[in-house]
């Protein structure tokens, strides 16, 4: 869904209480928001609960909230709710261990693009939760540094630093892959 489609779907929800449009928005945002929330809330169940709650509130307040930037609003709302969730300690936080480092990565003479891509994906899941969140928001959701900064309540400088760090990590993976290919 493009920017314009999102906007018109949200307008239909606000003006005509249009549930099919609301479902479209839900389907479009749900998985990416859960992914985003899981990094803050600490578990997938917590993330799903938080995202559902945010949509419940979104529906209830559709007439009154005066939301113009739906996407930014949703990410910000999810983040706040995650913090409340963690603060209220409804569940004990068990932060999942980072996926075990792929020490036994297969050493292949010629790396296929698919495999390289997999290695790069793995490297990204091993970033710090904040680094991972920032990387995803920028790459997958097309947010600008300033938007990410506003949503996460950090400085744009930190966003840039974290992104540079993530990309450095990718470059390391590329260099390793390259050195495995060439000799």
């Amino acid at each position, binding site marked *: 869904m493009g920017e314009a489609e999102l906007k018109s779907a949200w307008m239909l929800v606000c003006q005509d209480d249009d*549930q099919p449009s*609301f*479902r479209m928005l*839900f*389907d479009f945002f*749900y*998985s990416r928001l*859960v992914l985003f929330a899981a990094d803050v809330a600490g578990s997938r169940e917590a993330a*799903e609960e938080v995202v*559902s709650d945010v*949509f*419940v509130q979104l*529906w*209830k307040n559709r007439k009154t909230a*005066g939301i*113009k*930037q739906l996407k930014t609003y949703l990410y*910000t709302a999810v983040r*706040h709710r995650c913090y*409340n969730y963690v603060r*209220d300690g409804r569940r004990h936080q068990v932060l999942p261990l980072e996926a075990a480092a792929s020490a036994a990565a297969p050493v292949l003479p010629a790396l296929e*693009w698919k495999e*390289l*891509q997999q290695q*790069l994906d793995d490297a990204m899941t091993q970033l710090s939760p904040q680094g991972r969140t920032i990387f995803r928001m*920028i*790459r*997958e959701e*097309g947010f*600008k*540094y300033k938007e990410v900064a506003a949503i996460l309540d950090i400085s744009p400088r930190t966003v*840039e630093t974290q*992104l*540079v760090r993530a*990309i*450095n990590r*990718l*470059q390391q993976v*590329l*260099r390793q892959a390259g050195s495995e290919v060439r000799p």
Partner: protein
Amino acid sequence: MGTSQHRLDILIAGKLSGHLDEAGEAELQTLLQRYPERAAELAVLQQYWHVPKVEEAPPAAAFDRMMAVALTDASPAKKIIRLRQHWLKWGAAALVAGLIVSLFYLPYNRPAQLITTADGERRNFRLPDGSIIHLNGGSRLTSHMDAHRRELWLEGEAYFEVAPDAARPFTVHAADMHIRALGTAFNVKAYPEEGRCETTLLQGAVEVYADKAPAGKIRLRPYEKIAFISKTGKTDMAPLQPISVKQPAAVADSALQETAWLNNRLQFDAMNFEELARLLQRWYGIRIEFRNEKVKQYIFSGSFAGESVMQALHALQVTEDFQADSSGNLITIY
């Protein structure tokens, strides 16, 4: 060498995320000629960056479960009515009990609520206790209410009309300042970037005290204002004497600078351009950048109501010489 590699990292991040302007692009190309191996890497990174994301559909039942909750109407007022109908069947005694239960539990024991406004946005709303709050742009307000207290934490600017309730003190915490209201209307301004926190009282009475001196409470009378200057977290207690902002007059305070924003009026008096730009950014939800240090020091007084931001800037250009270009959300002043 090390620094130009680091610069290259920043430029590559900017390139991938679509932040590079023409100058950045040119700088990137120059640096890539010096480090050709990084150019090859960048090509692979770009390919990886643009791999479409696998869209994951949510579980089919997720929407229906959420919607079932969203459609149950749980606004407090309706709950009370429903409770009443329910209790009516059980007779007068139970009705009284039901009302007591609903009165004590429904509006009071709520978890903290957070309300925020973006730059350029202003919101009015009513708290569960009946107090009315006007929240100015770029602000955040957290409220916590229970049977014994009403506490709010403010970053930014808000105007409070407090519903009287002697049993539950109404306290606003803003930066280093704490304002305890005693049934009243007052304005608090505490934007973190301004290093200054102000309270102006319009009606009733408030007590103000600072972190540093909880015992040194100051009681304001109507049309008095008090300001704390905080520098790097320290509270400078110098201007502890309240100053009068206006002789008490009509209650309609459209002429008072401190509360002009409530009437959608942006008012400023002998303010330098740098400060005014901060005000304009919040007011219009735009970004302003200065390319000329001298211009920042221009001093302006005036007031805007229905003007667009460019109209406002044109009005300022009548008194002082500067140029303003706008592109999208960003206005450059030089």
